[in-house]
């Protein structure tokens, strides 16, 4: 597909990387020529220097033949204008990043009137993801499929866990629950395991199950499943606002610490139920005074990645809180993972995931659409949800007889709201949605799961 990306910041760059890897024709527009220079040197994309909202610049980037324009600049207004002009000039689909809460509240109207295909709010998306984790603190990452009927949970096996040194067949026998282990991270490797695979401590495993089954599973292996009672949030930015709102709605007490007095007043006005503290969180006394030791969860959301990492390390050392760390910019995943900080939130990846999902779905004009897509482990494994239509080549064949690609797993079948754990004899039917977990990137269609 011909895709134009306007704005090449952190998020823009992540999207460009993803889309060019998936063999799309990507043209990048940015006002900064050195940024364009850099991005065209690193990815197989074309660059245009100029203002993305200009008709002339868009024409130069080939708006007439473009299928999609993605506006990812810093400014909401500019993004909306880019999309509006693109819509009028080329009639293509448009995606805009809109982060201002004022517009966000009216996003339905804006989308409708400007003809946007999608409006994306990285901060709100990140907040939703954090809130999900705090409702279930034993997991380090939770994704939902089939409108919440299936969950993908990621957690680390502790040394004293009963799963340590246990093969997957034994897990199924001894625990007897409808839970499927679909991916295991061990060191830098990602494994899609089979029955004889033996789990070790420090493995990060991902399981697919319905919420009820997963709660049962965690109880059986002796892990607490209740949501946190309170949360300490450092940094009062936009994510903090969205997060606090969600947490307060689920009855979790929220305490926000921010340096800026004016921002604190603003937050206090917007979130009357939250406790707003005006103080410097890098000062240990402030954190202690506000009861870090007894906090059940600690979320570092300041604008400085290094600061967030240090705050989280400190919180880990002096409390038992569930720790969530936001990372905007830096990309030393391997090193950050070594700190065992628990849940890491990368807003740029969440945004890129949303867009890649949209692009893949757009490619399938008819047929088995990609309904949902998550990158389970960076760029190493994905979980996709497909809707099965009549012409899919997998319908009505027992799963045991399908010639599936290696490193690919059918993790769950959702039949009219009922969640089935796939067995060798199960068959996929028209109208089902199935969840596939795989290390093969860029599956577009359900038929791609079969060997060529």
């Amino acid at each position, binding site marked *: 597909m*011909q895709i134009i990306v306007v704005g090449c910041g952190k998020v823009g760059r992540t999207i460009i990387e993803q889309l060019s890897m998936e063999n799309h024709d990507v043209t990048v527009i940015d006002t900064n020529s050195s940024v364009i220079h850099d991005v065209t040197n690193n990815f*197989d994309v*074309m660059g245009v220097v100029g203002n993305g909202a200009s008709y002339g610049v868009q024409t130069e980037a080939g708006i007439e033949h473009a299928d999609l324009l993605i506006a990812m600049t810093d400014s909401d207004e500019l993004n909306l204008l880019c999309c509006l002009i693109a819509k009028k000039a080329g009639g293509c689909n448009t995606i805009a990043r809109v982060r201002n809460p004022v517009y966000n509240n009216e996003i339905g109207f804006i989308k409708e009137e400007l003809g946007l295909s999608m409006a994306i709010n990285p901060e709100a998306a990140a907040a939703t993801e954090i809130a999900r984790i705090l409702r279930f603190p034993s997991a380090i990452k939770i994704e939902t499929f089939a409108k919440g009927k299936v969950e993908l949970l990621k957690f680390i096996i502790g040394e004293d866990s009963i799963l340590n040194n246990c093969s997957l067949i034994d897990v199924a026998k001894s625990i007897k629950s409808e839970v499927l282990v679909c991916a295991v991270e061990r060191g830098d490797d990602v494994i899609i395991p089979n029955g004889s695979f033996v789990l070790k401590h420090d493995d990060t495993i991902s399981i697919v199950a319905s919420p009820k089954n997963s709660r049962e599973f965690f109880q059986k292996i002796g892990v607490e499943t209740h949501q946190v009672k309170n949360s300490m949030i450092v940094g009062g930015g936009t994510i903090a606002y969205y997060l606090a709102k969600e947490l307060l709605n689920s009855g979790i007490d929220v305490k926000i610490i921010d340096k800026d007095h004016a921002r604190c007043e603003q937050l206090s006005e917007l979130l009357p139920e939250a406790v707003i503290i005006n103080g410097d969180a890098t000062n240990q006394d402030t954190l202690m005074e506000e009861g870090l030791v007894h906090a059940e969860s600690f979320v570092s959301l300041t604008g400085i990645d290094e600061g967030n990492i240090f705050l989280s390390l400190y919180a880990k050392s002096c409390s038992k809180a569930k720790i969530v760390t936001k990372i905007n910019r830096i990309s030393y995943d391997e090193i950050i993972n070594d700190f065992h900080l628990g849940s890491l939130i990368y807003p740029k990846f969440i945004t890129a995931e949303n867009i890649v999902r949209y692009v893949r779905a757009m490619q399938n004009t008819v047929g088995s659409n990609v309904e949902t897509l998550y990158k389970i482990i960076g760029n190493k494994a994905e979980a996709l949800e497909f809707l099965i239509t009549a012409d899919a080549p997998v319908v009505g064949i027992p799963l045991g007889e399908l010639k599936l690609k290696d490193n690919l797993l059918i993790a769950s079948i959702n039949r009219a709201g009922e969640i089935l754990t796939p067995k060798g004899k199960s068959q996929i039917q028209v109208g089902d949605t199935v969840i596939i977990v795989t290390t093969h990137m860029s599956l577009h269609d359900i038929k791609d799961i079969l060997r060529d």
Partner: protein
Amino acid sequence: MNYPIIGYILGWVLLFESAFMTLPCVTALIYKEQEGYAFLAVAIACFVLGFAITRKKPKNQIYFAREGFVTVALSWIVMSLFGAAPFILNGDIPSFTDAMFETISGFTTTGASILTNVEGLSYCSLIWRSFTHWIGGMGVFVFLLAVLPMTGGYNMHLMRAESPGPSVGKIVPRVRDTAKILYGIYIAMTVMEIVLLLLAKMPLFDALATSFGTAGTGGFGIKNDSMAGYSILIQAIVTVFMILFGVNFNAYYLLLGKDKKSAFKLEEVRWYFGIIVVCVLVIAWNIHDVLGNAFLALHEAAFQVGSIITTTGFATANFDLWPQLSRTILVIIMFIGACAGSTGGGIKVSRIIILLKTVKQEIGYFIHPRSVKVIKMDDKALDKSTVRSVSAFLVTYVIIFGVSMLILAFDNLDMVTNFTAIAATFNNIGPGLELVGPNGNYSMFTPVAKYVLMFDMLAGRLEIYPLLLLFTPSVWKKN
């Protein structure tokens, strides 16, 4: 330095060279020539070697600008070595130095020859000589990128190292598609010329060799008198195509698209045609008295200007005998060269434009010391780094030219011969003046001088820096 990936790409280059060599093999088969076995042997050797190397993909496929530049420079040398081998084996050009000179002259689309009797060569050697022009014209890597399914954003480093011009861009978002479009236009135009030449009653073999020579703006003739023996019509067709192959290929892509007008608005293309028209008129007026016929004067002037500015180097007349003004103009346009993004050589029209604008800007600073002025091209502000690299290019160019002059001086030939020999090889033209004029050749130089000229030809084709990088020790260090 990622050595495995450099070796791997070199392997692919060998495979492509063996494929290209099937053309002289087929020619030998048609003319039943013994000399063809040498091409067959080398083609097989290239294939076996290339196949062995490319069987295993290196683990680390990431490479950066310096690997790209080094790979391109090395590939051109390796290609020339294997391309020269058949000449030595079949005895057409027995000396190693001469065979290398002839092959490098071919691949770099120079067209400078050490042969005193071209017509004595076998047909298969003749077609290979001309075909190297065609391969070298658009570039091996552009071909490689168009055909091979190589992924990743790093491929641009290869294209940038091989394609001429101050700032190499893409015409469509993906390198592979860009390469395909370029070769598509290249092949289509070559076929067009072959057909027209055949219609003008040129024999098939001559039409093929001439078209390859024109398309790559190379200039190897297959006759001792270059193009002089052919009819006026054939010469006119060659004139038109020489000039067309010197145009920036982006213009053709624009012509194929919706917005045809913008092709005619490209500043570089306008300057290019402007320079040609002015030079043709002045030379035609200047040689009018010598030839005594206005039409003939215009025809000869157009052919020679087209041949020299596009750095092709075909000749219909011995312009060495023309009046001093015409000779001087021809030497000057040797340096200007063709457009960036074409198959021609030289400094390139766009660089000349940028340099002239820099001079104008500099003069402006003397008049208004606090003035701020941005250099623009095609109504767009040029990057400071582009302007800087153009100035640096010119400095490097002058230095290499000077050093070459110094080394050639040991041969004790006259100044004009030495100067135009370097100008004609460094700018990938072919014939110069005096001893290396249209009726002369490069056979009288000593081997040392020939190697200097070979370096100049490669440096000229790859625009200096890839080749200089080979001689920079820090590039070869592990880190």
